[in-house]
């Protein structure tokens, strides 16, 4: 028997191992969803190793992908900067278009409100010295402009044309010292002449002391002289001073139009000086 065992030892061992393997498999079939002690032990032992390996592998993967990403980020950054610049330019252009639209709409409303033919002009230059107040506009005698024609903007009177060239003209602003416009105080109908006082200011002159003029009164063109049509807003009274001596009051007027921000204006073409 012993000899038989020795003789077939190899086959028997193989059969035993196979049987053990088969029995292990067969016995665990019933309990296939639960870990047996061996599995638990193996899992417990291998867990730290598997975790570390996974962490190292993840870090290495991250570093690699970050490096690859970094290579693309610079190019992407340049492209994004370009698109930000483009979008900013578009935004500024859009805002400018909105503002221009509002301005032109106001000018169009004015054109409808004034029952006199008019030509729209744009400012292309300003006075080259500090003490005179004139503007250069982009239309001239070839467009039907003549010296003396009144110039108005959405807020009211701007001035009148002087020095007309074929394709450009100069506008003498109502704030220039050489400017004088016959005017009337809208509320009390007190008459006077609005003269430029420089520095964006005007004064209402030749209004006698007896006339009723108060701060806040609106001054409009009187139509006398035939240059400016009657009823155009000129400005608002900001100061009234009745001195002890003299016949006239000292009245300061703030122009209705913001002279410093003029861009488009209307020239009233019917009112011409021969």
């Amino acid at each position, binding site marked *: 028997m012993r000899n038989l065992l020795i003789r077939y030892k190899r086959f028997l061992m193989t059969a035993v191992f196979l049987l053990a393997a088969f029995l292990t498999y067969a016995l665990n079939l019933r309990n296939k969803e639960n870990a047996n002690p061996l599995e638990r032990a193996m899992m417990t032992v291998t867990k730290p190793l598997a975790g570390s390996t996974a962490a190292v592998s993840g870090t290495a993967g991250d570093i690699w992908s970050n490096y690859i990403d970094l290579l693309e980020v610079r190019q992407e950054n340049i492209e994004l900067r370009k698109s930000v610049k483009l979008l900013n330019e578009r935004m500024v252009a859009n805002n400018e278009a909105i503002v221009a639209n509002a301005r032109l709409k106001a000018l169009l409303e004015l054109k409808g409100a004034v029952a006199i033919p008019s030509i729209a002009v744009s400012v292309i230059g300003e006075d080259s010295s*500090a003490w005179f107040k004139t503007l250069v506009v982009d239309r001239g005698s070839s467009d039907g402009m003549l010296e003396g024609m009144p110039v108005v903007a959405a807020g009211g009177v701007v001035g009148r044309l002087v020095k007309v060239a074929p394709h450009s003209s100069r506008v003498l602003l109502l704030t220039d010292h050489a400017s004088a416009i016959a005017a009337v105080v809208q509320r009390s109908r007190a008459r006077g002449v609005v003269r430029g006082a420089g520095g964006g200011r005007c004064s209402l002159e030749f209004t006698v002391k007896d006339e009723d003029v108060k701060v806040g009164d609106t001054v409009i063109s009187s139509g006398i002289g035939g240059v400016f049509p009657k009823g155009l807003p000129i400005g608002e009274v900001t100061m009234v001073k009745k001195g002890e001596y003299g016949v006239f009051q000292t009245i300061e007027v703030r122009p209705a139009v913001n002279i410093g921000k003029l861009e488009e204006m209307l020239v009233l073409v019917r009112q011409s000086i021969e």
Partner: protein
Amino acid sequence: MIAYLKITGVVLAACLLQMTLLPRYLLDPFQPNLLIVLVVYLGLKMPHRLAGVAAFGLGLLQDSFSGIYLGLHAFSYLCIYTLLSGLADRLYTDNRALFVLVVFLATVFSALLNLLMLAIFSVSKGVYASLLPALIPQALVNALVASLFSGVRLPVEEAR
């Protein structure tokens, strides 16, 4: 010929700057008058027989872009040129500080002469109220500009 064309270019650029760009970015009394700097330059450094005509021309050019009185600046610039060309022989005109100082004084002189002319011959009552407060800032700004350009030589001078 090319030198004179270059000068014309300089003058036109100065005019355009004064009329368009500078008023947009600088407040009223702080806008430099580049033409008066040129007139002072002519008076001090260019004793050419046509330089007086050039100074007068620069004044007319200034009048074409400023105010409504043609000839006002032309007269004052010619006065400044005459005065400076008469004094130039007795001054060390290569001194930069002198150039800056003369630009300052010329601005003041020109403004006062303009004021006198306006007071006597025009109806611009109260123009002094705009002119006088702006006088010193304007003169200082012109002097500053002159100090920046004091080392620059016009092409004609270079050719000579």
